[in-house]
Every structure is written in structure tokens, then in C-alpha cells.
């Protein structure tokens, strides 16, 4: 009997040695005359357990991890292929609390299927959304996406259905679907996981979008820092094309849709949608002023739907299971699920997809298990380099767009970076300004000049030069950047800076000498 085992080929597994474990297992099995088929999957998102070997058993998949190639012999000695006990046993993978507590809608197949197989995708419910979309037609698709309450998962949270309707209402002409896969925020990796672990769901989502708005071509714009995602997407697009799911007659229908991957060149600002469009056109990634909206004048001046990976990847399940099903998850105006990414100094680093509404503290302390160093969590940055730093005092904030906004923060793309009590928050504020200065496209003055001045100001504050006066100038500068910048890079850099200053004032040069002088 052939034993089927699963080992992830996600970058997160490769970076801790999965590509050594897989051949070592196959070699050891050969030597023992064991018949083993190794399927390379995406990731379940439990990265602290990688590399994980999952063995298919009648009761489900039994996990072992984290495994090194040197452990293979002892695992085989312990009858791993029959689900035998071993110190690395994790039991049934889907019973691990981190996994069991999730609501996996967008990531339902991630870590389970072979991302390079169209058959496997279809066998696990893939292309059911497209089938439904073809049956109901463009107007009903837009209606369904509107009713689902889906909001842009890239960060801004703009209703996806409204973007689609705007493009659908433009006169028939060349239109485009652009997937923003320029996931540059530190602390985020959900887009990468989808592209590497379930790329066909993104292709299906883009195809449905194309049919809905009358677009025949799509681009996935991703990062040069994501070589494995690029490869996985390109293979999946080829498979979809070979299987008749892309091309002049999508799934044998009257609709045409095809797509390709484009790779950026290391510019963070290209994650901003208009800058991304400029980059796709082959230009400097400078931000465009809005209006006109990309929905009217987008890529090459044509009407363009531009959505994040997670937004597009959520569309197939909305179509197959219905807007109501999706909308029933979540709270307030934040509907559906959000893949939350736990990162930084965290014990259980990984992706946790759940309905909106779980508290920040529960996510960090309970799900994430606190810090990897075992020290006290002092601050978390939510929403990437442009997100606010939250202290423990705000850990009761529910994970929801509006709740974070109300506390001068943002959930952005759903990344949470955890810092222990060794962090210096003034340095983090300085870094936020420095990062903005490095990555500014240079088009607007508040961002281009403001960020450079911001670095100097924080330096002066940390060096105790005219501290009180410079803090006032820094606050003023942040205000100018927030309201005067063209896009979110300059506009949101004040979030990490101001939150650090507000919640951790003691880190801003308040030396003992200074404190005494102040008293």
C-alpha cells in the first residue's frame, strides 16, 4: 500500500529546510523498501511547526514537526507512515487548537491541496464559484459581491462591489482586472501564502471579476522578493490555460479571459494602487492624483478593477456559497473573515483566519502564545509599517476596521508584529520615518521632505536636544504629512510615529536627568 504524505513547499517551510526534509524522506523510504508518495502542498499557516510532515490516515492527516532531515530515520522507526507515536507527533493536524479555532474560508484549501494541480483544486471545491458565476451572469455577480459586504483586504477596506459596479457601468471597451499582490508590509504574508498554496483560487476570483465587469485580461503584480510565489502563479496560470479555464472560452463559455504575472522591482510604494498601475505601464512608480479613479481611467487609461489578492481570492466562496453565508461572519461593517498574520517576536507565528471581532489581546497572547523570547509583550504594530503601535492597555480592541480607526489605528492588511519589552519605541518611530524616506516616490512634498525631516527630529529628541520643542514640531509635521500627502505612504507614516509618542512617551529621550529637570 502506498503511503501518502504531505510536505509544504511554501517559502515559510522552505526557509526552515522543507526542501531537505522531502528528499531525505524519499531516500530513507526507498532504502527501507517503503512505498511513499510525497505531495508538496502550500502551508497550513502554522509556521512554528515547519517543516511538518503530514501522513494521510483514515481518521485524517497526522502531523509530525518540526522535522529536520536527520530525524527521518527515527520517525520511520516509530512507524510514522502508520501514524505511530513519536516525540514530534502533533496528532491530527486539524485538531491543533491554532487550526481548529479558525474559520478557513479564503484559506480553505491552503496546505491541503497540491497547488500545481488543477484536478486537486477542482476536487476540493475549486471552480464552483465560476460555475455559479457563469450561470447567473455579470449583473448578478456584482450584486452578490455587493451583498457579501466584502471590503478591500489590501488595507483601505473599500467595498469591493462598488469598485466592480463602477467598472461594469463603463461603456464596453478594453478593461482590465489588476490584482495587487505587492504585499510589502512587514508582518504580512497572506497574499504570498495564497499565491504559493492555492493560486488557482486567485485565478478563479480574477476570472469571475473579468466576467462581472467585462474585462478580458488580468495582471497579477507581485514582488521580486517573492520568487516562489511568482513561480507558483505562473505554473497555475499555465495549468488553468491547459485545462480550458483561461483563454478565449473560459470553461467552454462565451467569455474570454486570460492573465499573466508581472514582477515589481523592489519599490514599496508600488503597493499603492495608482503607483502600481504606473509601474505596470513601465514607468516610475509615482502615485497618481485621484480622481480620476482607476475604475474609470486605470491601466493604460482603461477602466480597471484593482483589488488585493485576498479580496479576489474571497470571491469564489462568495459566489459558490452565497453572499449571505459570507456576510454572516464578522461584526458591524466588517463582514466575513480576515486572515490575521502573527509575526515578529511571537511564539506561534502564522496565519489565523477568523471572523472579524476577536480582540487583539486574545490574538497575541492566546492564539499567538506571547513572545518567542518569553518576555513580556510591550507593543504590537498592527497593519504594517504604516500601522499604529498599540500598548497592552489597548489589547481589548476588537479586530475590526472601525474599532481600530476609533483608536487611531488601522488593521491594514491584517499583520500583527509583536515586540517584547526590550524594544525602544523612539527608535521604531525613527524607523517609520526612515522607511518612508527610503520608499517615498518623491511626487508630493509632505512625504518626500517630511519623512527626511522626521528622521532628523526623532534623532534630536532622542539626543535630548530641545526635546519639548522638537516633540511639538514632530507632532506638527505628522499632521502635515497626514493631511497633505497624496497617498497612504506619507499619509499614514504618522500613525506609527504618533502612536509610539502617545503610548510610549517615556522612550522619547526622557533620561533620568531630564525627568528630574522637568520636575
Amino acid at each position, binding site marked *: 500500500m502506498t503511503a501518502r504524505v504531505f510536505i509544504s513547499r511554501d517559502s*515559510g517551510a522552505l*526557509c526552515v529546510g522543507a526542501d531537505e526534509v522531502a528528499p531525505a524522506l524519499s531516500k530513507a523510504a526507498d532504502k527501507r523498501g517503503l512505498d511513499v508518495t510525497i505531495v508538496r502542498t502550500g502551508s497550513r499557516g502554522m509556521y512554528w511547526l515547519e517543516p511538518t510532515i503530514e501522513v494521510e490516515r483514515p481518521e485524517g492527516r497526522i502531523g509530525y514537526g518540526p522535522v529536520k532531515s536527520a530525524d527521518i530515520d527515527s520517525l520511520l522507526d516509530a512507524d510514522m507512515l502508520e501514524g505511530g507515536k513519536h516525540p514530534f507527533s502533533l496528532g491530527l493536524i486539524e485538531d491543533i487548537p491554532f487550526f481548529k479555532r479558525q474559520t478557513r474560508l479564503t484559506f480553505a484549501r491552503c496546505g491541503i491541496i497540491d497547488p500545481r494541480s488543477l484536478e486537486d483544486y477542482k476536487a476540493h471545491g475549486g471552480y464552483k464559484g465560476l460555475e455559479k458565476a457563469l450561470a447567473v451572469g455579470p449583473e448578478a455577480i456584482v450584486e452578490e459581491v455587493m451583498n457579501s459586504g466584502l471590503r478591500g483586504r489590501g488595507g483601505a477596506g473599500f467595498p469591493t462591489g462598488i469598485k466592480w459596479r463602477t467598472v461594469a457601468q463603463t461603456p464596453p471597451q478594453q478593461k482590465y482586472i489588476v490584482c495587487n499582490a505587492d504585499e510589502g508590509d512587514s508582518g504580512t504574508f497572506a497574499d504570498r501564502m495564497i499565491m504559493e498554496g492555492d493560486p488557482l483560487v486567485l485565478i478563479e476570483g480574477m476570472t469571475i471579476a473579468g466576467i462581472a465587469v467585462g474585462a478580458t485580461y488580468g495582471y497579477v503584480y507581485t514582488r521580486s522578493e517573492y520568487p516562489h510565489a511568482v513561480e507558483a502563479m505562473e505554473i497555475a496560470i499555465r495549468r488553468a490555460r491547459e485545462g480550458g479555464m483561461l483563454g478565449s472560452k473560459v470553461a467552454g463559455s462565451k467569455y474570454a479571459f486570460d492573465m499573466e504575472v508581472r514582477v515589481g522591482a523592489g519599490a514599496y510604494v508600488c503597493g499603492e494602487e495608482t503607483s502600481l498601475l504606473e509601474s505596470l505601464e513601465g*514607468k516610475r512608480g509615482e502615485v497618481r492624483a485621484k480622481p480620476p479613479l482607476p475604475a474609470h481611467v486605470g491601466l493604460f487609461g482603461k477602466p480597471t478593477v484593482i483589488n488585493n489578492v485576498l479580496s479576489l481570492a474571497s470571491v469564489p466562496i462568495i459566489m459558490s456559497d452565497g453572499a449571505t453565508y459570507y456576510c454572516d461572519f464578522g461584526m458591524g461593517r466588517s463582514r466575513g473573515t480576515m486572515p490575521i498574520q502573527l509575526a515578529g517576536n511571537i511564539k506561534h507565528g502564522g496565519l489565523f483566519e477568523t471572523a472579524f471581532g476577536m480582540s487583539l489581546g486574545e490574538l497575541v497572547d492566546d492564539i499567538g502564545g506571547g513572545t518567542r523570547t518569553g518576555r513580556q509583550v510591550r507593543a504590537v504594530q498592527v497593519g504594517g509599517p504604516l500601522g499604529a503601535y498599540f500598548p497592552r492597555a489597548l489589547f481589548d480592541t476588537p479586530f475590526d476596521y472601525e474599532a481600530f480607526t476609533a483608536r487611531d489605528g488601522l488593521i491594514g492588511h491584517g499583520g500583527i508584529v509583536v515586540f517584547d519589552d526590550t524594544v525602544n519605541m523612539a527608535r521604531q518611530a525613527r524607523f517609520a520615518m526612515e522607511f518612508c524616506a527610503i520608499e517615498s516616490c518623491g511626487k508630493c512634498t509632505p512625504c518626500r521632505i517630511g519623512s527626511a525631516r522626521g528622521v532628523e527630529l526623532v534623532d534630536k529628541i532622542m539626543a535630548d536636544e530641545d526635546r519639548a520643542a522638537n516633540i511639538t514640531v514632530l507632532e506638527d509635521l505628522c499632521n502635515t504629512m497626514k493631511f497633505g500627502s497624496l497617498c497612504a505612504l506619507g499619509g499614514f507614516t504618522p500613525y506609527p510615529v504618533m502612536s509610539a509618542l502617545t503610548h510610549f512617551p517615556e522612550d522619547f529621550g526622557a533620561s533620568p536627568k531630564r525627568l528630574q529637570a522637568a520636575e
Partner: protein
Amino acid sequence: MPRYEPWSAKRASTIIAAHKHREGAALPILHALQHAFGCVPEGAIPIVAEALNLSRAEIYGTVTFYHDFRNEPPGRRVLKLCRAESCQAAGGDALAARAEEKLGVKMGETTADARVTLEPVYCLGLCHSSPAALLDHDRVFGMLDEAKLDALLKEAQA
């Protein structure tokens, strides 16, 4: 291990011709040129400009906008250490300083023997396993500590 071709205008024209028909061809062309030559040499700019019917200034502006494009080839191996927040939180700053010291270069520089170019990168999307690094085009490393970094540096210098 990357080996780059010596600059040749003729070869550059062939590479450009393979991509120039694509919509918004500039980035794919520049990537392909860098893949072949290890950089986008100055001599390539007028050729790209002519092929795309754009001005030299426009192509120069595009090339210099993006962090990825180099004007001279890097060392034999390129090691990128992630310097973004998640890796900072997990001890990345100390590792970056260690790498600089062991290689005897600053971030962005190449060792005197031209073996290793050390560069910062702002996020490899491996933040669940910070600190992270990328060697050459696609070899990823996570959960770095001093011992793992030292092994990585040794490999890069070999």
C-alpha cells in the same frame, strides 16, 4: 550561482526584442537585461528607449526609481537580510551588524574579493519566522540566529 554575461549591445537588442511587444514592456525588459548582465548597464538605456519609442530620460528615470536595478553587477553571491519591523522585533538588527562585521562591509556593499554583496531588504514575507534572509534569487532562510547566520555567511563566501 549567478554568472553574468559580458555587456554586448547586440545581445541586449535580442533580449529587448523578445519582450518589446508586451504591454508596458519596460519592467520585463529591464528585469531580463539584469538577469543576463547582472545589472542594467548605462549602454542599455538608449537601446531600450529606442525600442520602446520613449526618451532616454524616461527609461533612465524608470531604471533609477526601482531599488532592484543595479548599474554594475553585484558580487558572486547576493545576500539580502530583512531589516523590516518584524525582523527587528526578532533580533534582526544584531544579526545585520554581525553580518557587516564578519564580511567587513556595510549594507549595500560588496566584499573586496567580489564574492558577496550584502544588502538590506524590506520584507521577504517570512515574518512568521523572523529574522529572515534571501540568498541569490530564491533561497530563503528563516528563524535565523547567530549560528545559522554564520553558516549562511560561510556558504556565501565559499
